[in-house]
């Protein structure tokens, strides 16, 4: 996945995806806390979601840092794209943290034999 030169609003798309990932994670976390519908398949699915979030972090960081350096060299303000990439990067980080924490709870349940089929 390339961070720069993408057609369309790449950062915006990532941003929307992060919001949806957080919503899904929140839902999963509630179910985990209530010991509902924790299956191995769902754990695996959330691992995949985690990987997709991890994959967008480096390109976002690159856009942000490149924008920062460009702003430095050209003595211009940080571009809107770089600014948004920075915000989205932080959102991705938060979502990553949330999923990891939720996975931890999910695996704890599975380890205790509470997983349902």
């Amino acid at each position, binding site marked *: 996945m390339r961070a720069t030169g993408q057609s369309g609003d790449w950062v915006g798309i990532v941003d929307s995806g992060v919001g949806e990932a957080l919503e899904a994670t929140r839902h999963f976390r509630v179910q985990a806390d209530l010991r509902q519908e924790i299956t191995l398949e769902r754990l695996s699915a959330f691992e995949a979601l985690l990987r997709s979030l991890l994959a967008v972090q480096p390109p976002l*960081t690159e856009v942000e840092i490149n924008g*920062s*350096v460009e702003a430095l060299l050209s003595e211009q303000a940080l571009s809107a794209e770089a600014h948004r990439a920075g915000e989205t990067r932080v959102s991705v980080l*938060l979502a990553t943290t949330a999923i*990891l924490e939720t996975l931890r709870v999910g695996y704890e349940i599975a380890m205790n034999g509470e997983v349902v089929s």
Partner: protein
Amino acid sequence: MSIRIKMGAGESYLENKQIEARLDALGIKLNPDRTIDESSAANLAGGLDAVKALAQDGVITADALSQLRRQVGFLGQITGKSLPISEKQTNAWRALGMELTGTAGTLTGITAEIRRAGSINNSQFHRAGERLEALEKRLGDLSVTEPSQLQLAQVAPDALQAVATGAKALSAAVSEYQQTLSLFRSAMVDKLAEAHGPKYRLETGKDGSHQIHERPGWFTRVQINAIGGSLLSALEGLPTWAKVGRLLSEPIGSESAFARSAPAATKPKLDLGAAVDQAPGRKAIAEIEKALGSDPMIFPGSVGRAFEKRMPEQRQALFRAVLDAAAGDLVAKKLVSNSYGQIHEVSQVPKHSDPNASVPRPIFRGALEKTLKGLATVLDALPAKPTAAEVEAKASQMIDEAHYAPAIAALYRSM
């Protein structure tokens, strides 16, 4: 660094003197060797205008102009006086660049090991953890996540570039490492599901009755250790990753060290002797807390509305009283940024964000509460009628004490 002023061919003595006088009038004195440097400029902002004019006249080259603009931009607008590049600061940032690159290399090596061997172990987690700890220590030593304007102004640009390169490499390496750990867990789970089938099994007895058999826990002790260790290792790296991500994003080109569009001298001077009224700030905090209710997750739209629409006067009073009037935008944004986990600046919901957008961007209650608590603490720690200088000092102290990791921890708790 000095810049030679090139004189046109065939330039007369009179023209020469005119240029010198023009520079002199704007605060720049030409050195005997026809160069200008930091010590030449008594008034760098005025000097910059002079040099621009000279460039337009074709007297100096574009490269020389670019160099001087950088010099003036770095130094003049930050300090208002000349400030040389510091070898010590530059070396510290170069070392950080090397540390970032080294950590990226270590993580890449561990990732390759895991992929090659198809297994994970505690030794790998420890190595990753130790390397990240060393990086964290250097980040802490340098205070690079909250670099002072003075520090950054003294760092040579190539060192900043090295840090940028290292940060990008580390970001990619951490991502790869964590993805590999995740793949490992997924593979384990897939195998388990395939081998053991569903958790509950229905058996039909000879008499036609049905019995539900529950299987014991899915994972063996070794598998539990592998999963637990990989999750822990992944979580441990996140705060450092977050710091690396914001290494250059905040100071450069934003509103802090390298913003050069408006010299500080043009901003209204703060009246540090004036008393600050705390009541509007306290009222705003109470109203915001009330507006948020008990929902564990809040959205920027609601925050934006709370700040921008429901209580605009109180909001303005809050920031005027606690932050803006005392310490300026920089303090306000840094305090909020620290407490907020760098999600949004309370004082400025990003313009591109539509509060009514169909896909909200969640932020967490814990982070906002931390912000509010921070603001309230500033107020609590002050005397009844503090001066703006006292507010500024307290706010600065809090900023120094703030750390990104606790913000992340607060976010963990808020989930």
